[in-house]
């Protein structure tokens, strides 16, 4: 055993020396598998993860997020902060400096004008830019010289690391996209398929929804990187087949998002050709409680609106009892294995924003029953279902069609039935459920059921916009074509006030404190949102691929320039 450890150590040392001596293109070819195939490489025209992440091999922002969620400079010299004077004290302005001598892959210099152009490209009213939220609140961008970018905001911006930070808002080359502004954006097929970037790779060939062939960027700023001369990103198939191609047959070096069930995970690990990487971000599978009455007896336009509070879910004791009856660890075991963990928080990460609350983890069926008794819900006619004032405790529980979600529904239904609640299950095709069609009764926004389950997360590391979804004025209803984000119709003036405070607080420690409080107001203090599982990323990497670090805060291919072949 000792010998083996020593050998492993020796291999590691050898490995690291190869990295140190590596030169660009020395390690040949690397194969990456995205089973959802990339459709386009311009992240401003697609919000799909597959497109953004593949595009990030070519296009880069001024800064990015590392695997801990910390902002690090890419094209910028350093990350501006209030301390280093990059951000003004009033939080109205941030100044970025480009690294000197930066060039695009075609050899032309990268200048601040490219950044300004990118901002104009994404904020053009007819462009339909998918990442417009990254540029929200910007009053103007000034370029005093070729290397300086000054962003001015309309209001204090405590978190300015949105524009030009991360894979979702990279710099475009102004010269290449000059004719692609606004409505012309989708006529620029050549540009959208083969953007010129500053990243470690450049596009050689792009086949829509199939393959991207890349080669090392000869003008990449680090002359020793990337170690691979060429890369293929292949698409198609499903998560299981993707995992198999890395873990069992070894045809591919890296496969993205190989969400497979725990049993298959074990089986594939046994083949010994690769490892499953997992990392946790902010994606939380949760049950949302409807605070308004979804009864079909109400007139259309009044169902699930604030005019009618929910007959029993507006009682916190009922909501809490439903949460207490759930054993979250069992859900993790049947659905996600190592790619999931039980959580009680809506904001499970980054660490500084995550509440330490673990009250909900242990199932407490007796406590839940007692709580319902206390709330006046008892089984008066002995049919196993609790009732109160002649009304039965009946819950309609909806979610999207997806095997794991239907398993969850069945198990949770068992627990709730044991609790004395009659549960009716419903599942809706994901394209309808998340389709947002105001004419459909089955969207998650309309919420024509008592509880519903889905997963959501937030972009980047700052939970403010995410927590601000629960403001009173964001409640969906007929007057806003059911487009609000406050799905639960939760409304608490104290909550609104705290969100307002968060939006003007710059001190990170204070922001974290407020965010934790807001998270708790939605979860353990009110049980309006009942978090179930913190869903991690699960990707597969070959044993021969070195340098892979799974990052859940930015694109998974964030450090492809550091990848190398283990010898």
């Amino acid at each position, binding site marked *: 055993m000792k010998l083996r450890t020593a050998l492993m150590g020796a291999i590691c040392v050898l490995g690291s020396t190869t990295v140190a001596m590596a030169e660009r293109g020395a390690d040949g070819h690397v194969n990456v*598998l995205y089973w959802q195939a990339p*459709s386009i490489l311009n992240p401003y025209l697609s919000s799909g993860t597959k497109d953004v992440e593949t595009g990030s091999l070519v296009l880069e922002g001024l800064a990015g997020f590392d695997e801990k969620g910390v902002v690090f400079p890419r094209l910028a010299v350093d990350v501006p902060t209030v301390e280093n004077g990059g951000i003004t004290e009033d939080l109205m302005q941030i100044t970025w400096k480009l690294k000197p001598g930066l060039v695009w892959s075609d050899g032309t210099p990268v200048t601040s004008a490219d950044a300004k152009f990118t901002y104009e490209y994404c904020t053009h009213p007819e462009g339909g830019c998918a990442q417009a939220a990254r540029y929200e609140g910007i009053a103007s961008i000034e370029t005093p010289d070729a290397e300086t970018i000054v962003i001015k905001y309309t209001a204090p911006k405590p978190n300015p690391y949105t524009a030009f930070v991360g894979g979702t808002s990279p710099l475009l080359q102004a010269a290449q996209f000059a004719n692609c502004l606004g409505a012309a954006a989708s006529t620029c097929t050549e540009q959208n398929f083969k953007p010129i970037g500053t990243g470690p790779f450049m596009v050689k060939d792009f086949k829509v*929804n199939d*393959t991207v062939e890349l080669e090392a960027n000869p003008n990449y700023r680090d002359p020793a990187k990337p170690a691979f001369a060429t890369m293929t990103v292949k698409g198609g198939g499903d998560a299981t087949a993707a995992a198999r*191609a890395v873990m069992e*047959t070894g*045809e591919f070096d890296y496969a993205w998002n190989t969400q497979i069930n725990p049993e298959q995970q074990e089986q594939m690990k046994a083949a010994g050709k690769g490892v499953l990487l997992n990392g946790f971000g902010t994606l939380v599978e949760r049950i949302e409680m409807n605070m308004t009455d979804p009864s079909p007896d109400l007139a259309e336009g009044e169902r699930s609106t604030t005019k009618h509070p929910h007959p029993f879910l507006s009682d916190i004791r009922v909501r809490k009892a439903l949460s207490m009856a759930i054993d979250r660890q069992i859900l993790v075991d049947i659905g996600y294995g190592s790619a999931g963990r039980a959580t009680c928080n809506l904001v499970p990460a980054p660490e500084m924003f995550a509440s330490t609350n673990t009250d909900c983890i242990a199932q407490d069926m007796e406590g839940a029953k007692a709580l319902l008794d206390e709330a006046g819900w008892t089984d008066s006619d002995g049919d196993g279902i609790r009732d109160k004032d002649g009304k039965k405790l009946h819950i309609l529980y909806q979610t999207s069609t997806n095997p794991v979600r239907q398993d969850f529904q069945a198990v949770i239904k068992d627990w709730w039935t044991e609790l004395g609640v009659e549960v009716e299950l419903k599942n809706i095709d994901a*394209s309808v459920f998340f389709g947002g069609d105001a004419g459909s009764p089955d969207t998650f926004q309309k919420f024509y059921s008592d509880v519903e389950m889905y997963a959501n997360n937030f972009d980047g590391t700052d939970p403010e916009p995410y927590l601000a979804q629960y403001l009173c004025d964001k409640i969906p209803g007929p007057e806003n074509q059911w487009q609000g984000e406050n799905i639960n119709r939760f409304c608490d003036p104290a909550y609104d006030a705290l969100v307002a405070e968060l939006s003007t607080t710059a001190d990170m420690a204070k922001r974290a404190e407020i965010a934790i409080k807001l998270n708790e107001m939605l979860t353990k203090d009110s049980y309006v949102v009942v978090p179930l599982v913190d869903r991690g990323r699960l990707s597969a990497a070959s044993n021969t691929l070195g340098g892979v670090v799974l990052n859940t805060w930015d694109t998974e291919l964030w450090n492809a320039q550091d990848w190398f072949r283990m010898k």
Partner: protein
Amino acid sequence: MLTFTLRRLLLAIPTLLLISLVIFFLVDLAPGSPASEIPLTVPPEVRAKILESLGVNQPVWVRYLLWLKQFFWVEPLNGIDAIFGTDYAEGMQRIISYQSRSPVFAIIADRIPQTLTVIGTAYLVGVLIALPIGIYSAYRQYSLFDQLGTVFAMIGFSVPTFFTGTLFIIIFAVYLGWFPTKYDTTLNVTDWDSFLKQLRQMAMPVMVLGLANAAAISRYMRSSMLDNMGQDYVRTARAKGMNERVVVLKHVLRNSLIPVVTVIALGIPSIFGGAIITENLFGVNGIGSALIQAIHGNDLPMVQTLAFIFAILIVLFNLIADVLYGMLDPRIRYD
């Protein structure tokens, strides 16, 4: 015969228009929207802008007429431009895919070769396997070979390709390591080595589809042969002292092939249609996988255009089958 063909061609126009209407509205009115492809992290205002830029908000009949114009006018003009280097279609808006924001026909042109190579070969292999099995099974009806042929056909018919495909992957790729599980679409056949590589990567999808195709066609062949074997002219041929080889392969086979040729011709549009499941399973970037990805991505223009192209092909090959039938069998000419 010519008038018959012309009349059928003319009749095809209203049929196709009606089909285009049905397809467009069915796909459009079906539940689901491109909005469901946008992650929940995108705020509602941005979401609305994206949808507007896709043109989703226009009334459905406006979109239908625009699509018809693009399909029958702009796209053919683009085709002419591409072939002759002209610029008739300059500045005209083509049918644009929601997912990739690129012209739908460019994607189709990109994918047709793979589909024709893989699915076409599978069809050919299927036919080549099916005909001998069908012929010999009929000739030796109820023999061991016939029973085995029936079992083979039953398996081909009843086991879905997603199952055989996965089974083949596990047997031939995971355990035996003979073939790659993923089709390398970037491979260019330039020399003997790359040709062998191409054969290896085509092997599994062709086997899976060949099995399914062969099953159906072998049954048609067998029953058609059986119909003819009992005919008077067969007895006459034998009475005249012809050997069995001539009787079976010349007299019976020729006559039995008539319905089988029709069946084979009617199956050809399905080659262009690709094989949705098999292509997706093996990562062949053909038309079938384009269709399923478009359906998953709620890429309506892509789905509508592909479905309509299939409709055109089916109408066309029905016509071809009818004409072929008349040519093969002088008794049923149409004039």
